[in-house]
Structure formats: C-alpha cells, structure tokens
C-alpha cells in the first residue's frame, strides 16, 4: 500500500491490542447509511515511474516559451542554491514552529527574513508572510480599519492603476465586513493616478489610501505626493510595492513626510519561480505603533533557561489560535517555505545583487521600448516606467498573443480585458532574464506579424 509501512503481522498485533477484529471495526461509530462506496471516479493507483512519465509529458505540453508577461508575476533568475536548500527535508517537511526548541532553524530564518524585509521597506516591523500580494493588500485594508480609530467611514480609496485582480481580491475579502471601496482614475497619457480625481476626496473621511508602486502599467506613481495626501487627510497610507525594486527605489518607510503606515506587496520576485501563480507570498511591514494590529506570525528573539539566545513565535495574542474570534485575522498556515527560499535568495543577492537585477530589468525594458519605437510602434511614453510597459497595437491583442505563441513567445498580458480604454494593448514585461537577442527576436516576430 503506497506510503503505509504496516505488515500483516503488525496489523494483527495492533488489532489484538486494540481489541477489534478488523480495521473496519474502528469505523463503527460512523452510521452505516453514511458509509461511502467505492470511488470509481478516481483512477487506479500509479507507480512513481508511471506518474513521473505522465508529468514529464504534461510538462512537455507546456514547453518553455520565451516569456514577456509580468502583470504581477515576474520571471527572474533564482540561484540554484535557493531551492536545493529550501527543499531539504528539515525545512520542507517541518510544521509551523510551535515547539520553538525543536524549530530553531525555521525560527531564526524568519527572524532574518523580518530583518531583511524591514530593511528593504524601511519599516519598523515585518510579519512572517501572508498568502500573496493581493490578499496581503486586502489584509492591509482590514488592518487600516482597525488602526485608524479616528476614521468612522470605513472608506478606502484604490487607484485604478492598482493591479485589477488585487482590487477584486480586496473587494472579495473586505466587502463582507461592509467596507466601502472607491476607485481613483488615472491619466491615460502617463498611466499615473490622476490627482484631480483624488482631490474630490480631500477633506472627506477616508480611512486609507492604497498606493501601488510601481503600478499595474509598470509606471512609477508619484508616491511621495500620494502619501502626503493621505497624511494630510488623516488616512492610513498603504503601499503596494515590488520588493525587488525597492533595492533601487525609495522605500515606503521614507515616502511622504512620515512614511507609509503599512507596506505590503508580492514577495514572488524575491526567489519564487513563476510556477503558474503560486506558491508566492505576501509580505507585510508596518510602523511600530501598529504592530499589535498586524495579522500573521511574528518571530522574536529571546533567551532560554541558560541565558542563551534563540527565537520564538511572539505576540501570538493577535492570532486566531489564541484569540479566536478576536484575532487580527483568520490566517494560520502562511507561505513559510517560500519565505525560506526568499530569505536564502536575498542572502545570495544582497543589496548589490538585487540592485543589479533591478537595474538590468530597467535597462532591458527601455532597450526594448527603443527597439519598438525604431520600428514605428508607440509604447506608452513614460520615462517613469520600470520593467513593464503598455504597448498599444493596431491588431487585436488576443490575436497578436496567439500569433506570437506560435513562435514560442509569450508576448505579454492582454490589457484590453481589464482596461477597455486601451482598446488593443499588451502589457509587456522585460526582466534581467532577457538577452538583447531575445529582444530582437521579439521585435522581429511582432513586426512580421503586424505587417502581414
């Protein structure tokens, strides 16, 4: 029997000890009429050899296209050491570190992670991860409601330039609690949030403002001004930032006059493979004064009975297993293993390495833009885009995507579905993984199709 070590002798001895005749007797408390039949719909068992072959075939079907899609998930080189270490059994197959003395590996690592994230964001405190960037943003909104006691409106402003699926996630997670969400439009010329649209809400009771950085279009928002707007308005400022780019960009803790209150975002660019969208992790950092309202686990350093330093889960009185209905969130299992990878990834790259990766993304992106312009195309012109940009097209985006796929290229994200205002446009992402000849191939393939 797969993964079951019992021999017939074991079984008999165990049944005798228990005092039943056969295993099925152990289920005698289940009413007979509820007993399940055979699971005919489930295929018959496979050996590891057979499932391996099947999965190789499935993997082969998907192939390894040259990928120019970002839109919330970014392709970066991950050092080989990262996942070789992460999948060591002791990290891979451990549970949440509830027994601190038997979990110092995981606990120290999380403490190191917290240190790195607070450094990247220039914030006071970090938790040990939430599910992903989108749900972390929703948690940040809920946290803002708890933190901003002065605000009674439960009214949150979301720029329309924030990733659309983040907005949807915030809606799904926050609306059951009666939170009001309003969206702020953006300028179609610059791709940035429209301050005149925001001005409408000035002097209103706005609980929090969410500030994406960079935004869904790859464009850098005027984060200082946005933060100041929140500060001036008595609103909690929530940043949603790509943590990789914070190696070269002003960190949320330094935005505006006093810095962001709650910094969240998608941790994926820091060591998680694209992997069809997960597992990634949401990071969350905050100002010191907000710590007790932060959801998720936190690791603290302390001493043991011998006075020796070590690490434990701390401030657990915020969590569901202690506070139950009064917890800051229902989150329990988080994305620990990805945090493990991410911590190792950040350790390997360091400040310099992350900055080089970010810089190379920036350079490559602008290089592709130049090449496209040289061919007569007109990417959305903003010097303020980072590693993604809007490319308006004169053929339907979905057809372009199909045609490029035939050549083994994932051309970009079809922006038109979420933003009908761009009637046919791709959101194109270029990271450090692309060589100049990749860019040339992209341009040539695209131009060939467009000029058909």
């Amino acid at each position, binding site marked *: 029997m797969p993964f079951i070590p019992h021999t017939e002798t074991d079984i008999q001895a165990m049944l005798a000890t228990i005092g039943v005749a056969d295993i099925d007797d152990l289920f005698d408390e289940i009413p007979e009429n509820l007993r399940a039949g055979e699971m005919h719909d489930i295929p*018959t068992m496979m050996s590891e050899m057979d499932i391996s072959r099947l999965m190789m075939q499935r993997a082969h079907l998907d192939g390894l296209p040259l990928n120019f899609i970002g839109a919330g998930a970014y392709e970066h080189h991950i050092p080989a050491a990262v996942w070789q270490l992460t999948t060591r059994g*002791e990290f891979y197959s*451990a549970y949440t570190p509830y027994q601190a003395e*038997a979990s110092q590996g995981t606990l120290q690592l999380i403490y190191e992670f917290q240190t790195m994230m607070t450094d990247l964001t220039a914030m006071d405190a970090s938790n040990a991860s939430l599910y*992903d960037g989108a749900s972390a943003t929703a948690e940040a909104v809920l946290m803002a409601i708890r933190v901003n006691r002065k605000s009674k409106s439960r009214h949150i402003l979301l720029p329309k330039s924030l990733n659309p699926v983040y907005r949807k996630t915030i809606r799904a997670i926050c609306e059951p609690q009666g939170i009001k969400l309003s969206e702020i439009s953006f300028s179609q010329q610059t791709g940035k949030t429209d301050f005149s649209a925001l001005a409408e809400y000035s002097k209103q009771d706005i609980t929090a403002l969410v500030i994406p950085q960079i935004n869904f279009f790859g464009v850098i928002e005027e984060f200082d001004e946005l933060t100041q707007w929140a500060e001036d308005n008595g609103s909690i400022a929530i940043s949603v930032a790509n943590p990789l780019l914070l190696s070269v960009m002003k960190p949320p803790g330094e935005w505006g006059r006093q810095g962001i209150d709650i910094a969240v975002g998608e941790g994926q660019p820091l060591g998680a493979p694209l992997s069809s*969208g997960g597992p990634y992790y949401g990071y969350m950092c905050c100002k010191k004064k907000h710590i007790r309202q932060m959801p998720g686990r936190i690791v603290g350093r302390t001493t043991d009975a011998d006075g020796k330093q070590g690490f434990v889960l701390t401030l657990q009185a915020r969590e569901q297993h202690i506070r139950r209905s009064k917890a800051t969130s229902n989150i*329990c*299992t988080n994305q620990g293993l990805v945090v493990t990878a991410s911590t190792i990834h950040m*350790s390997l790259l360091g400040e310099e390495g992350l900055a080089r990766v970010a*810089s190379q993304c920036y350079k490559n992106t602008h290089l592709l833009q130049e090449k496209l312009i040289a061919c007569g195309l007109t990417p959305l012109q903003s010097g303020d885009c980072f590693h993604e940009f809007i490319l308006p097209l004169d053929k339907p985006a979905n057809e372009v995507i199909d045609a490029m796929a035939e050549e083994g290229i994932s051309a970009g994200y079809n922006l038109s579905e979420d933003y009908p205002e761009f009637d046919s446009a791709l959101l194109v992402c270029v990271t450090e993984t692309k060589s100049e000849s990749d860019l040339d191939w992209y341009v040539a393939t695209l131009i060939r199709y467009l000029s058909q």
Partner: protein
Amino acid sequence: MSKPSNSMNDKLIFEHSRQNRRAYSQAPFEEIDLGELPIRFRRKSSLKHLPATSEMQVVRHYTRLSQKNFSIDTEFYPLGSCTMKYNPRACNSLAMLPQMLARHPYAPEQFSQGFLSCMYELQQMLHSVTGMHGVSLTPMAGAQGEFAGVAMIQAYHRANNDTARTEIIVPDAAHGTNPATAIMCGYKVKEIRTNRNGDVDIEALKAAVGPQTAGIMLTNPSTLGVFEKKIKEIADIVHQVGGLLYYDGANLNAILGKVRPGDMGFDVIHLNLHKTFSTPHGGGGPGSGAVGVSKRLLPYMPVPTVIQEEGVYRLETDAQRPNSIGHLSAFAGNAGVLIRAYVYMRMLGREGMVRVSEFAALNANYLMTRLADAGFDLAFPERRASHEFIVTLKRQAKEHNATAMDFAKRLLDFGYHAPTTYFPLLIPECLLIEPTETEAKEDIDGFVEAMIAILKEAETDIDKLKGAPWTQANRRFDEVKAARQLDIKWVE
C-alpha cells in the same frame, strides 16, 4: 565534557556579512545604471541588513540552520490536527520540472494544457472524495478555504434576500480559524457546547439556531478526535431553520474513502491539501484550502476554476461565474502545492485513498490503547479514536506538577516531536496526538516507551521534565520576555 562553541554555528546571516562581499555569479555583471530614472524616485538609504556574503557562506549557514529543525523527514511528529505524514519526494521533483516552474500564470493556452489538465483532474478527484458538486482550488490555506466557504454561505443568503442571518454557530471545540473566519465575514459567532462524549450538545444546538442563523461550522471527526454520530440530525436542525453547514476538512485524513462530507449533508467544505493530501507544510506553509460545494452554492465559488471546453483546458473568466464571491488571491491558488497533491492522489489511486483513513485510524487507536494501558488518562475513554485522540495530564499536573508542556518538551529529548498541546482548549492539560498512517508500529511503540519513561520521571525526578529540553540547541525559552522586550529584527 567541554563543548567549545564554534563561533560559526550560532551566528545570524548578517554576522557573515562584510561590505562589498558578494555571491558574484548570482547577479548580472553589468554595473548598476538606472539611466533616466528620476532622482526623486531613487533609494538613497543603504540596505545595511541585506547581507553581503559569499555563496558558500549562505549555503553553509542555511544548511546548518536546517539541521536545527525537527521535521517529518527526521523525526516522528505526532502533532494533532496537523497530519504530519510522509511527503513523497516524487511530488516535489515532479512539481519542480523546469516547465512547471517556468509557466507564467497568464501563459497563453498554447503553453498551458499540461498544467491545466492536471488541475482539472485534481478538481474531479476532489469532487469524488468529498461528494460535493463543485471544487475551486484557489484558496491558499485552510483558513482561506473557510473564508471562501462562509463567504459563499453569505452570498447565498444575500442572493435569496435573506439578510437577517447574522450569526454563525461554532462549537467550542472548533479550531481557532473557525470563529476568526466567521468574524472576517462580518458574522457574529455563537459558540455551542460539546457534551461529555465530545459530541455537539444537540439541545444546546437546538436552542441556538433560529432565523438569525446563517450556518454552522463543524468538523467531523471533531478536533476532539471523535466522530460526530448525530451528524445527520445536526444537519437537519440547521437546514430546517434555513442555515447552511460548513465542513472544516482539515481532518479528512480520518475518513477518506469511508464517509463523504457531501453525504453527511454539508453544503460546503474546505480541504487542507497540505494535510490529507500530503503536501509539505514547509515550516509554516504554503498550504492549499481547496473548497467543495453543493449544487446550490456552485454559482458562488471563488474564481477561477479550471474548465474544459472542446478538449481545451482554460481558467474560467469572471464572466463565466458572475455571482462568484470573487478572487481570493491574484492568480489561481498555490499551483505548486496543487501539483504535489495531484501527484500524490494519482499515486494513491482509488485503492490507496481508503487505506489512508484505515491506517490512520489503526495507528491512532493502537497508540491510544497502548497509552491508556500504560496509565495515561484519555479525554474520551469510551470513544474510538479517529485519526487522533486526546490524552489529559490533569492528574499528573495535580499530583506531580507535570504539565502537558513539560511532557512536550521532554519528548524532544527522546527524539520525538511533541503532540499538539493545550488544544482543544476545553480539555485541561491535554495532548492531541495524531500518529498518521505513515508511521510504523515499532516507531509508535518507541513513542509509547518514551511516554512511559517520562511518566516515571514525573513521579521520581520532576526536574528532568521541568528543565527539559536538555538536548536541543536551546533550553526552554522565556516567551514572556520575547513579547515584552520585543526584538523582531536584527540591528547592528
């Protein structure tokens, strides 16, 4: 004899850092050049606490750190409610095939049929084991699955204009995520008692339900480790007042192939694939809290599920499930975890599935019997264990001052991870013990021997327990200090 401290071993990664050191091959060689990026956007403060280390230092540091963990791959880990069973290594390697890792979540259909077909089949298999009508794989862990479930209950009532339902009923024995979830969905939580046998108090339930009842969150077998026999009656009571039943499927290991939540009358269920379906817990996650629903909740499932249209697999669009509770995360769930679960389920197959619960039950009942025979008190001596059971050390705490925590810490010295302690909250000084089906009889016997030895120590040499653990990297921690003198990041 003297153990000199190796300076290298207990350092933080930051202490290996030196300015300008780096893992040279791990980043582009080209110098940093941000061209025309406006100065106002740029970072000025330096990153002091990102380590500057060599590749070997990182590898050595984290290899050593890993060795400080207990894990399934190294120890018996009978943590109740957590189903710490073997995580097959093939699931890991097959989830990490290059194409699987490289696939973008928005990859065009041409580059997606392999992955999506696995997900589609996984949905089908989960239908089958739960007896539900629809499955969404998007929730990222049990708690998010609960959220999805309760949000669907809410959406259902709202769609029926049934807006007076403001309460969710939760048994006092429930996992903490249950009440926390109900609150996140904007409900009030009404707790109901458990009776002496570990069952829901039917009279209390009857008294609690009413037109204000949106639903009840249950798990069966309950966190007390016993099967709720009157489940049909409970379902009827709740359904009769118009409420819906939510099943916390964290404990499906107990009943896989034996009884299906759908058949018990549940309307919605979440599954912890990182427990029953053996994906790793990774020192805290990631998990997967896939949800299954009855017919009437189908319109509300979180999007996107995987659909098949004319032989092509696709993620459904929002428009295809307009009444969905929506997106719970950016993409479509923890794909890497889902692949691991898929591979595991295909390896078990229909034959293996039912063996899981049979041997989980065999191990739990055997261990329970042996501990009872050895003089330990069971919380529910009259009941069968399901996949787990509870020992209460109330007597030992009273007589010898040997608490559940003391037993837990001392077990580490014997090379066993501790069972879950002090949960469920209503059993004093309890250990919730779940051996899982993948442990061999002799390893369970070893655990029993350790428990007996500790019991003896409790009677004769209580300091051995009180001071434990003695053999780990650290002795027992000062948790109060941790919370009071908050030190949650390293500062040079």
